[in-house]
């Protein structure tokens, strides 16, 4: 049997349009082969934030479980968790460490109001799913608080309710103080969807509102979902690897150049023209037929590569439009108009062969109508709509969120800002394209 490979190379450029790596093996971009991506996933997967300030307020009043529940017989009006946060932190660290030299990290943020818990690798290796950080971090916090304040057994469970909210009476941490970048497994749309639960707001927070980095990170999570779901094998492998390289990692500077060229005066139509010209020049598409009316029909020479080019155009059109308005809400319209125009004006397949258009249409409806859905920043790919486009739509949603200058009611800073602090110093999150490129070359060398 032949080994599953995509024997191709791309040049990757960063968010400033500078070349960061030449001849990057496309196969090395597979999250399962790329240590930069796996490091990001590892850090995300082992991380949880406990809102100590919220725990303290809940316990002081007996307001447990959210939704206006109030049980004063559990109240501990004098409890000073934030004031003693460092002592709590020490206790939690002692609980979660598996050895003195493990990589566990327990740190305080926001003047002791929030507690970061990152589990050590050895604990992660034991876990069957990705809920261990929330449960271990939560349990350690509960026991640390109970021990630190010598809490009566009759009130100890109030500490659990303050941290875990309604869990285990319900399937998530409703009303609790646990913040995780990932949603709970029991709310997954399908199997293998864990990485699709990371919201646009989380990604944009980590990327510090950089649109191209947001798209890159979004692509990492989508690609990792594809690995989990068995969708990065066989005939789909090249489609998504190339899509990731071009749309999310700015291969051949296609996204950057297009935005740079059209950012000031551009329109969605002009973006399409730009992408098509580039594809013609590169031999990715060709003229198929000129109709008597003069209308020219094109066809792809290389279907998967054309899809990657088209996806670059979709992201570029998003950045041009949402960037001009500094408003995220139009991303759905951009996705729809870009793909429909592309299809109708060229005869070429649109992004992911109709999936992106469909997603754009429903996203338009769900973000603009009274049937609900949610704001752009709250969107995840674990959604009845966005799940139907694999990989290609979420980077646009994330880029749009990053470019929004204050029109969202639930913006990243308000909802998930803590994640920008947590991962601020991590190279892979700071410079995803460079890190992934370097790791892909390493992976390629290893194979050779």
């Amino acid at each position: 049997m032949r080994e599953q490979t995509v024997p191709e190379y791309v040049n990757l450029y960063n968010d400033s349009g500078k070349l960061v790596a030449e001849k990057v093996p496309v196969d090395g971009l597979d999250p399962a082969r790329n240590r930069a991506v796996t490091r990001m996933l590892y850090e995300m997967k082992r991380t949880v934030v406990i809102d100590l300030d919220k725990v303290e307020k809940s316990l002081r009043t007996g307001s447990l479980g959210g939704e206006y529940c109030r049980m004063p017989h559990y109240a501990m009006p004098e409890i000073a968790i934030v004031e003693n946060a460092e002592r709590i932190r020490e206790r939690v660290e002692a609980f979660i460490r598996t050895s003195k030299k493990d990589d566990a990290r327990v740190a305080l943020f926001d003047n002791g109001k929030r507690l970061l818990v990152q589990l050590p690798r050895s604990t992660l290796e034991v876990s069957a799913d990705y809920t261990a950080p929330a449960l271990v971090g939560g349990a350690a916090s509960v026991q640390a608080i109970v021990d630190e304040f010598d809490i009566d057994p009759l009130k100890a469970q109030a500490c659990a309710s303050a941290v875990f909210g309604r869990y285990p009476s319900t399937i998530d941490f409703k009303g609790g103080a646990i913040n995780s970048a990932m949603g709970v497994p029991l709310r997954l749309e399908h199997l293998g969807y864990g990485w699709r639960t990371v919201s646009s707001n989380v990604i944009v927070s980590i990327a510090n509102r950089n649109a191209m980095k947001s798209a890159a990170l979004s692509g990492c999570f989508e690609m990792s979902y594809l690995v989990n779901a068995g969708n990065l094998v066989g005939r789909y492998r090249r489609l998504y690897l190339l899509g990731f390289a071009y749309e999310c990692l700015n291969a051949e500077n296609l996204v950057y150049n297009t935005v740079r060229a059209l950012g000031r005066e551009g329109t969605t139509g002009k973006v399409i023209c730009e992408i098509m010209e580039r594809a013609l020049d590169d031999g990715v598409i060709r003229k198929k037929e000129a109709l008597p009316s003069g209308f020219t029909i094109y066809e792809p020479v290389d279907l998967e590569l054309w899809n990657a080019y088209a996806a670059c155009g979709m992201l570029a059109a998003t950045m041009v439009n949402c960037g001009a308005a500094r408003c995220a809400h139009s991303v759905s319209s951009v996705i729809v108009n870009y793909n429909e125009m592309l299809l109708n004006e060229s005869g070429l397949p649109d992004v992911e062969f109709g999936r992106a258009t469909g997603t754009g249409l429903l996203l338009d409806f769900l973000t603009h109508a009274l049937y609900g859905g949610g704001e752009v920043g709250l969107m995840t790919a674990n959604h009845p709509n966005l799940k139907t486009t694999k990989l290609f739509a979420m980077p646009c949603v994330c880029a749009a969120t990053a470019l929004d200058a204050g029109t969202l009611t639930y913006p990243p800073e308000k909802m998930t800002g803590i994640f920008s602090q947590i991962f601020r110093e991590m190279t892979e999150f700071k410079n995803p394209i460079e890190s992934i490129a370097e790791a892909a070359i390493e992976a390629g060398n290893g194979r050779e």
Partner: protein
Amino acid sequence: MRDLVEPKKKERLPDYVKALENVFQESNKERRTTFYRYGAWRQSKRKKEFYKHARQLEKEMGLPRYNPELGIPLGQRKIAPYQISKENVMVEGEDMHICNNAAIMQMFDDVARTAIMDLTPVHEILQKRLGKSVTPDTLNRVMEVWNHTIGGAAAVQEHMFEINPLLVKDGYVKLFCGDDKISDLLDKRMVVDINRLFPADKAALLKKDLGDKIFALARIPTIAVRNYGSAMTKRWVATTCLSAFANVYGISGETAINTLVYTLRHRTVIGIGDTIAVRYGRGENSPGGIPFGYICDIVQTDRVYPEDPVRYLLDVAEMSSIMLDAGWLQQMLSGGLGAPIRVLFLMSNEVFDSIVEHMAGWVKERYGGYGRAPCTIATIEDVAQATAKYCQDMYDSSPLVSEMLFGGSLRSRVMAYSAAITGGLASAHPMIGVEAAHLTQMIRKERTGRLGFFAQDQFHNQGHANDWTLLTDQAQVMELRNASYPDYNVVANLTTFPSAIAGSYIARGGAYACNPVIKVAFSENLAGFDFGNIRKSLVKGALREFMPEGERDPVIPPH
């Protein structure tokens, strides 16, 4: 243990003995029963009626129908009717089967169709994002439109096909607020008047805790939950609410409206039952997801009869048994098991009433009042032993009580309910009640060798460990646990826990057990079940005097 089996001498014939002698037509002193001489199923008027209907159906359908001759040979014991405690009404068991009792069905429907909306964030979005002015006048107008749309009527789109208002007449929306100044500005027709509905002291506490937030109480039409299931309630409420806002404030087709919907659906709407694990096959607002503390707040007897706290405790026990045992465990999880005894055993023949009344008096005598016992292991033991002794004495001294509470499980459970209430009343902490309930079962098991069926033993053997735990899949305050809680999912004795919460709430005083919003939301029910008079409503259902909502009569042939 000897003193447990000695019958207690009483000067006066207890009410429960009188009632049981009435229903069994035998003396409590009789030691040789004639129970076994009855005419099988034909002794039941209701079963004979069912038999007759079924023969007619067989002729019409050509299929075998109901036939008690095929079942176990009924008639080995007397099929006794039940005298509803304090109501002096006799009913047959069949009349308290959920499907035979319109009031019980309405009780389930009324919980399933209720959701509450905190309108404050919505008003903020309207003002900040859309620049709209929110005033009492606009809110009154919203409420007028919302009471139109709650019945599935259109307010923002044309060519919508609407629902016959007679089908959905029980759907309605009202507002409530803790600030009287705000409430005074609103249209009185659409305000839940906390001051009128609650005693002054309770009203003051509720208003303080609600603050100046404006809540909307929404009851969607019964026919909607009957057709589409309880998980849809929050969606129906959010969508119909949004239609009203869109209509009044003139908003449509823009991102802000979506933010409004998202806020309404996912951030401000409060359901009654939480989401539970997939394996139970039920969505939100199902009985399996209702926090035990909410059951105590749904029951309104403490508001209607504040001078009679025992009555409230009895009603919480009754509602728990109906919702969580007869409904959730027997029907929704097991599927089709007829167990009307789970409805009847706590409110019949004065048995449970007598025990709870006695134990409430015992608490006062023993500790000098409610909520005065220390929260200690000693109190748990004290309460458990006293309750177990009282109940066991009753079972041992009265064959009629044992016959009514047939099988070990009912006798065990009455004991557990009683201890849960007593422990809560004594200590003002639900944990003491729950622990006392478990301990009574261990005492009883020590005496009888087992409790009822295996799951009952399982539940109580694990009970102490599960109660005090900090394990992540078990640690939770009692008020927020529910019938789908780990280790609670299979056994009817979980239904005793709300009683411990209710007992502790009565001992603490105050206006609600767990959630002020839920308390106010069930203080008024314009059309449906009366949560302030539970027993009376159930009796009306048994006597076929209760008129339910959600019937299809307006759109079907006259019948």
